[in-house]
């Protein structure tokens, strides 16, 4: 039971889109690892990201702030961020704070790819 871990893979046909499958929780402690992972991916040329939140049990303001910074960074590079399938618990927090109107949220991978304008072969 690691506090935070992730698995990443390429998305669709493009080389500049990736999916991160997040596990565990993102709080003021584990946010460092989360940022390290997505920044390495951006440095490697990724412009569009889907974060699969179905395995994320908890997020605090540190994690929300990191995702906000990430969305801003990606859009500055012509890309985008989509959050996929947050659990009821994480969704309730995002919704209570007004972030479900700010983040792009999808409930299936197909929907996520559509929101990024990525074609599936």
């Amino acid at each position, binding site marked *: 039971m690691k*506090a935070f871990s992730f698995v990443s893979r390429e998305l669709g046909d493009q080389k500049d889109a990736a999916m991160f499958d997040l596990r565990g*929780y993102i*709080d*003021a*402690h584990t*946010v460092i690892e989360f*940022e390290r992972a997505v920044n390495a991916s951006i440095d490697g040329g990724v412009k569009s990201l889907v974060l699969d939140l179905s395995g994320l049990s*908890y997020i*605090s*303001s*540190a994690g*929300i*702030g*990191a995702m*906000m*910074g990430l969305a*801003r*960074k990606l859009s500055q590079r012509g890309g985008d961020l989509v959050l996929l399938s947050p659990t009821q*618990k994480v969704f*309730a*927090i995002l919704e*209570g*704070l*007004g972030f479900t109107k*700010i983040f792009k949220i999808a409930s299936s991978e197909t929907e996520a790819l559509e929101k990024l304008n990525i074609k599936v072969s």
Partner: protein
Amino acid sequence: MGNVPDNRPSPHFELKCRVDSTMLRPLREFVSNVARTLGFSEKQVGEIEICVDEACANAIEHAYPKTFEREFANGGRDLCIEVQYKNDELVVRVRDYGCGASEEMKSRLRDLNDYLASDQERYRGLGLYLMHKFMDRVTVQSSPGQGTTVEMTKVRK
């Protein structure tokens, strides 16, 4: 309940600790687990969890700047979490013994639009906004050099 005495137990907890940020999880889950046991809904339990986490993270991150560092071996930080339940109200007090917060912080209830307009590697300044949003009452007591106490109340619905 009016004059009818409440015969349910009124549990009380005082948790003093010296911790670093790895311990945020057991701390927030302890308080949320107490709330769950008291019959708060899962939605309210989640709201209590994040507010406790934010208050404790603030104590660990902001209350003890470099000048205080020497006093705490191994990066530990002193804080105290008090939890009390009575008449359907859960009161959580998170206390630190650090540098204290400014007047600005006490009245701070950052507007979400300010937050969104800022452009940062990691956006910050959501913690107190969030506590006010999810708790029924929040008060901050602090004077420079005296440490800070954040008191949050959640009414069971």
